């Protein structure tokens, strides 16, 4: 919305300055004034006791929104295997499609990938659009943007979801710019407005300090990337039926400017935090890299995996691939045990959706206790051995 402040009504009380999350209001000559940082969020409108601030919704009906139908998800595959986030997108996409009363379609690109279509249908797709070409074997921004842009133009989806992977976060922005539409990054929640059926996209802002709900009212498709591990995976139903449609794609010379020379996989064991049911996570309070071996004992005893806060990664105690939080993985295990983690908002953003959270910390005022179901105030080096000992007394954990 477009915000305006009436100089006549403003009394210079400054309440709007505090209400604004973006530092977009300044005081000049005892009157509030907007600066360049205004995002039109409207947080200031209600804060003014003198009704000096107004927000006007802009209407713009350049494109026929009704032409756009269906919820699409990008079925990301690497080496002919669908990425786990694809099933999460199908789970979420199914719910959105039902609320709107439309179809769920998966968009699959690659070389010889038709075999994956059945899996996409079993996980909820009503329709699978397949684009196959040797040029699409490995992801490149050029080839995938051209192929999918072509499909968007042809079939006009109203919603298009991507996994916020290194591929999704590269592809979606290029497509959105080409379509001239909006894109909301790293959504943690998607809903349909019951009144106008528009997509409400909620994402963390300011390093997870604030949540923002974004809409894309007058442009289509409404595009969003979704953080892996946040949405619930779709259920598999092998008896489902769906339509498979091959979309022909041809590249012109000069279309493909990026050449893939080599794809290198890390040799070390990859950590799959997003799939873990039980996570034992360590923060600065574990004292050093050796602290993780204690955590590993507990994780092994429980059949879980270890993880880390950013502090330990920055200190070089453990690899970044173990990091949970805003700049690491988002996890939602059945049990998350936070050991010596103070609980900065950036960390909480990555784990507060866990079913049960246990916090162990020396500092009883640590913010982690605010989100914990069970808290133990104590030294990790004493509490974990005590838990291990207690576990050994249980028949099923005794060996």
């Amino acid at each position, binding site marked *: 919305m477009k915000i305006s402040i009436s100089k006549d009504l403003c009394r210079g009380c400054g309440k709007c300055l505090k209400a604004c999350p973006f530092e977009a209001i300044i005081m000049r000559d005892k009157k509030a004034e907007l600066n360049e940082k205004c995002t039109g969020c409207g947080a200031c409108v209600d804060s003014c006791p003198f009704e000096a601030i107004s927000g006007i919704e802009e209407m713009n009906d350049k494109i026929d929104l009704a032409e756009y139908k269906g919820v699409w998800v990008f079925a990301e595959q690497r080496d002919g295997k669908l990425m786990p986030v694809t099933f999460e997108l199908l789970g979420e996409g199914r719910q959105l499609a039902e609320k709107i009363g439309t179809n769920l379609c998966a968009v699959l690109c690659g070389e010889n990938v038709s075999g994956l279509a059945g899996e996409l249908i079993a996980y909820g797709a009503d329709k699978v659009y397949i684009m196959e070409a040797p040029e699409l074997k490995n992801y*490149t921004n050029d080839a995938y943007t051209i192929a999918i842009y072509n499909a968007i133009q042809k079939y006009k989806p109203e919603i298009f979801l991507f996994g916020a*992977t290194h591929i999704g976060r590269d592809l979606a*922005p290029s497509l959105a710019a*080409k379509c001239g539409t909006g894109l909301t990054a790293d959504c943690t929640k998607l809903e349909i407005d019951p009144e106008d059926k528009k997509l409400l996209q909620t994402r*963390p802002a300011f390093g997870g300090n604030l949540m923002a709900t974004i*809409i894309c009212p007058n442009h289509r498709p409404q595009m969003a990337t979704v953080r892996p591990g946040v949405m619930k995976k779709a259920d598999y139903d092998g008896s489902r039926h769906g339509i498979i449609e091959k979309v022909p794609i041809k590249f012109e010379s000069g279309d493909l400017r990026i050449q893939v020379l080599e794809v290198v996989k890390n040799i070390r064991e990859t950590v799959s935090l997003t799939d873990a049911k039980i996570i034992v996570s360590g923060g600065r309070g574990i004292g050093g890299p050796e602290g993780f071996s204690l955590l590993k004992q507990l994780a092994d005893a429980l059949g879980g995996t270890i993880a880390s806060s950013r502090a330990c990664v920055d200190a070089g105690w453990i690899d970044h691939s173990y990091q949970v939080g805003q700049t690491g993985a988002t996890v939602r295990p059945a049990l998350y045990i936070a050991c010596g983690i103070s609980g900065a908002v950036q960390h909480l953003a990555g784990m507060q959706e866990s079913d049960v959270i246990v916090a162990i910390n020396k500092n009883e005022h640590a913010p982690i206790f605010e989100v*914990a179901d069970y808290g133990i105030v104590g030294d990790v080096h*004493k509490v974990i051995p005590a*838990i291990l000992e207690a576990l050994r007394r249980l028949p099923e954990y005794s060996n």
Partner: protein
Amino acid sequence: MKIVVCVKQVPDTTEVKIDPVKGTLIRDGVPSILNPDDANALEAALTMKENNPGSTVSVITMGPPQADYMLRECLAMGADAAYLLSDRVFSGADTCATSATLAAGIRKLGGADIIITGRQAIDGDTAQVGPQVATRLGIPVISYVQKIYQEGDMVYAERKLEDGYERLAVKMPCLLTTVKELNTPRYMTIKGIIEAYEKEIIVWDHNDLCIEPEECGLSASPTKVLRTFVAAPKGKGEILSGTESEMAEALISKLREKHVL
């Protein structure tokens, strides 16, 4: 070689805290900084300049007049020229509108052989502006770059993936977005700081960029912020008491009650 670096001034989000009573952001004393990933982008540009004598590095940003300070920091690190795209009509821009304005700025500069920018800014974390600037300029983009090797007009880049990396080759002009693994940004030098204050920062508004007010800022942004709110913390749980072994016993029985164990 003409190198352009897109930078952004951001609040240091690691310093932003929530007022637990009012549920609002506490911004007092939160410093504005050069976005960390953009510092890596500038470092990559300066290294490239050193390897290619006769090259120039220009930094460009869209932002309020206060961004002047950050641009001088870039000059003090070694950039040759700084451009500030600043206009009231640029305000409220989402990534779509921001990329359009930056692209217009780069066009006015006469384009570039290579454009480098940080993968994402810490205030928005979208990672969208880089690829979108490239799309608008019609040049190829490689994001998440953790290693660069450049020879003549060819750029070889390692693009970081979740489980490894890929090696890509592209011909200039192109745009790269950088991650922190790429390099360690250099410090400003005393000489650089002094010189930075002698240089002029060129400020352009929408007239300079030959774009209409409707083509920028809020009016050109397909996405709108409907509302912002502080994430509600999950209700405070139970703090266990007793000796370590009593607490451990209690914890395990509670977890078993909940069928977590």
